[in-house]
């Protein structure tokens, strides 16, 4: 019985593909496609111009190549940049109008989209191949003045907010993938929390790449106005496919005076099969700006999926007394590769940042922590603490730590520590002696290793993440 369960878990649990006809833009990357996307979404002219400007810039930019995991060159002309389920052309008004197959998909994923699961208290904005499917809990949120909708809807209904904040954290002229996203982004979530409001529930998005050959380019924008608080969850899955798929999202967070944003990710994209074939290229740009005084941004991520993960959720600590936090677990198995970490840029006085990163690599995988802590000359009395630990299982995998530490202020302190080790024989022996099998023992020890980060996750996610940690390492012992 147990063996069967493990067998079930070993295969990628979310590797089913939903059979829904997709509505795609023509293949390739050019001005017409951008105009097509903009047109179909009925965007105002300023946004189209903005996209085109990004596209101009993109022509000059080169794909970066300094990262550790190398990948075969991506042909950007051979991708679909827009894909929407066809039955969506006329957007459904309520859940009942949704394609039952879609609902089924979400049910398999365990997303609390329907009525009864509303009790779970999560408002979900599900993104299915770039178009926002349905948004629940809207009413409760609207009452408090919270805007939680897809970014295309926000462009229509709240253009002033979008125009004011879009691209202020990740500018048009940033690096290659961010600029690519600016040019062709399709959908994503938009959150605005008005001054003084504490968002009563955890907001959540589930991303899912369905159609093959599509890149998924979401754009998420979260604005926490003065004195507000929001916790946002993001989960990702993708069906199994042989070819590699590109996911280049941009996430921008803006925290004004006294505001706090907590952003949690559980990333479980399809990692490719045991021989490293297929899987998602997860090249995401995530950046938070602590714009106001006493603001706080906290990133928590559990990265278990994707063939290649390449991302650095960052905090720009501009406001005085602002705080940036980064908690990360990255697990790579088989032929997965991850190059992840964070950037903490201290600009304001009395700013604090904390980085806890746990990397686990098994099989033939490669894990890199790459981080930057930069304290500028004006950031008096700032503080940083960094801890990154790596765990290796087997001698075919690698674990690397590449921190960049820059201190230009004499009143500021930076402390960094890192260790690399393996699970000790004593620990394993102890657990097995008490009746656990080797895999359970490793699971238990790894969960203990990750505890500091898992604690940061909201309840609903913590349970899922713990299971994921176990699933990801199946087959790596013995």
């Amino acid at each position, binding site marked *: 019985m147990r063996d069967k369960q493990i067998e079930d878990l070993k295969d990628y649990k979310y590797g089913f593909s939903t059979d829904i006809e997709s509505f795609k833009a023509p293949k390739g990357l050019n001005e017409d496609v951008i105009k097509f996307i903009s047109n179909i979404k009925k965007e105002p002219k300023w946004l189209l111009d903005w996209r085109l400007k990004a596209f101009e810039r993109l022509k000059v930019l080169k794909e970066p190549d300094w990262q550790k995991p190398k990948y075969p060159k991506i042909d950007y002309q051979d991708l679909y940049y827009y894909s929407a389920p066809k039955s969506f052309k006329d957007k459904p008004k309520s859940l009942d109008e949704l394609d039952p197959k879609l609902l089924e998909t979400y049910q398999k994923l365990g997303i609390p989209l329907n009525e009864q699961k509303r009790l779970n208290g999560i408002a979900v904005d599900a993104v299915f191949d770039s178009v926002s499917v349905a948004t629940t809990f809207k009413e409760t949120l609207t009452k408090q003045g919270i805007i939680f909708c897809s970014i295309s809807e926000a462009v229509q209904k709240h253009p002033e907010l979008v125009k004011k904040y879009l691209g202020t954290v990740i500018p048009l002229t940033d690096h290659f993938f961010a600029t690519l996203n600016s040019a062709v982004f399709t959908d994503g979530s938009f959150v605005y929390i008005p001054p003084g409001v504490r968002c009563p529930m955890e907001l959540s998005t589930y991303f899912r790449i369905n159609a093959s050959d599509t890149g998924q380019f979401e754009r998420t924008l979260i604005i926490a106005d003065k004195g507000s608080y929001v916790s946002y969850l993001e989960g990702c899955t993708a069906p199994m496919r042989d070819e590699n798929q590109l996911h280049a999202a941009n996430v921008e967070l803006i925290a004004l005076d006294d505001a706090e944003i907590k952003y949690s990710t559980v990333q479980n994209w399809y990692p490719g099969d045991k021989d490293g074939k297929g899987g998602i290229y997860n090249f995401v740009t995530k950046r938070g700006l602590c714009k106001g005084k006493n603001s706080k941004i906290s990133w928590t991520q559990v990265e278990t999926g994707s063939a290649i993960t390449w991302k650095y959720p960052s905090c720009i600590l501009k406001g005085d007394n602002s705080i940036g936090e980064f908690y990360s677990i990255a697990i790579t198995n088989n032929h997965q590769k991850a190059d992840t970490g964070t950037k903490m840029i201290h600009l304001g006085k009395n700013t604090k940042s904390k980085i806890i990163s746990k990397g686990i690599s098994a099989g033939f995988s490669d894990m890199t922590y790459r981080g930057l802590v930069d304290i500028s000359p004006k950031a008096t009395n700032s503080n940083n603490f960094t801890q990154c630990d790596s765990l290796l299982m087997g*001698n075919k*995998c690698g674990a690397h730590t590449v*921190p960049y*530490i820059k*201190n230009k202020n004499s009143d*500021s*302190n930076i402390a960094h520590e890192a*260790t*690399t080790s393996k699970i000790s024989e004593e620990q394993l022996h102890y657990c097995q002696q008490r009746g656990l099998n080797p895999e359970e023992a490793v699971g238990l020890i790894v969960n203990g290793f990750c505890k500091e980060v898992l604690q940061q996750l909201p309840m609903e996610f913590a349970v899922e993440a713990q299971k994921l940690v176990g699933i990801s390492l199946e087959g790596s012992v013995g």
Partner: protein
Amino acid sequence: MEEQLKIDFEKKLKDFSYSEQEKKFKQTNFKEFLKQGFPNRKLENWKFSDLNQIIKSNIGELTFYNDYKKENQIDKIELINDLEHNKLIIIDGKIEKIDFKFEEKDKIEVLVEQGEETIKENINSLINLNNAFSNKFCKVIIKKNYSLIKPLVIYHSTNKNTQSKNTNLRIDFKLEENACLRLIDIFKDNSEKNFLNIYYNFELDKSSILKNYKIDKSMNNNVKYSYNNVKQQANSISETFILSSGSKFLKNEINCDLQGQHSSAFVNGIFDLDEENHHEIKSNINHLVENTKSYQLVKSVLEKKSKAVYQGKIFVSSEAQKTDGYQLSNAILLSENSEFNAKPELEIYADDVKCSHGSSSGSLDENSIFYLMSRGLNYKEAKKLLINGFLLDVIEKITDEEIKNLIKNLLGIKE
């Protein structure tokens, strides 16, 4: 610059009667340097120190030709008095004097003017520059089972009228089985605005011990780069200590290949910087086989507009199980304008290892100063005492008592 390089290189080739093979070697290296030029910040290893820019702003136009036929006066160089030692005196990249008067003659072999070029791998463009322009090759061989009685001091000096010049030096050392060498490098800068490029190659046979102390203390306006390439066989030990202080710019690069089991490498350094000095230590410790060990400790005290960079890398190959690697860097920033950058890097492919690194930077602890001042010290004394204590940690790592005392005197630390 390119014009100047070509002219100087032609002159250089005419000066000596190089064999065809040597000529070819020099030309290939020269071409490679022409192609790459001085390293700039676009290269990962030079991210924090843009040498191209530093040379431009501190020296301006460089010339590369040195007349090695000319005799230099060596009596002007101040020698170390309180320590008996063997001497190797270098002026403008030319070896002027080799003196092993304390040693048994047949235990040490010095090969000069022999055209053997061993290193062909491409390390960086500065090594190419060195290979192209350095004077004839010099190799020091310490014979089996011989320990030098007194340390060898290499004086790096420049002529008074040498200016805006690039000088290159390359020396190879071979320590045969069970040999031991204590080596001190001291800079005596008589002139300003030169670029010194030094390249050492060490081969450490089984159970040999190398202790290299690099001392850059006196204030000067020169730009320097030093590269140590160490290859270690089983049970060998290398200890490198760097006191980085006086020059305008100094980058010490240590590359250590631990090729034999139970070999170990120690790299310790002190940055004691003032004014606008900009110094860097870059280490690469490559653990290639089982049971090897490395230990690195770097401490910095930074005044005024100075800038220190520490890039330390521990590489562990998949064969190198049971590796023990440790790396720590601490910095005290004493002025608003000083800057400390660190990039402690781990690249690990074996699972049964113990590797860790730590890095911290910040200001002097106000509480400690308060404690000392409440006991009657003035602010200056309190500060001095704390800094000395901070640096003493590194100095205590020096395993040679004589040299430890010499360095303590240089830094003005009394016990």
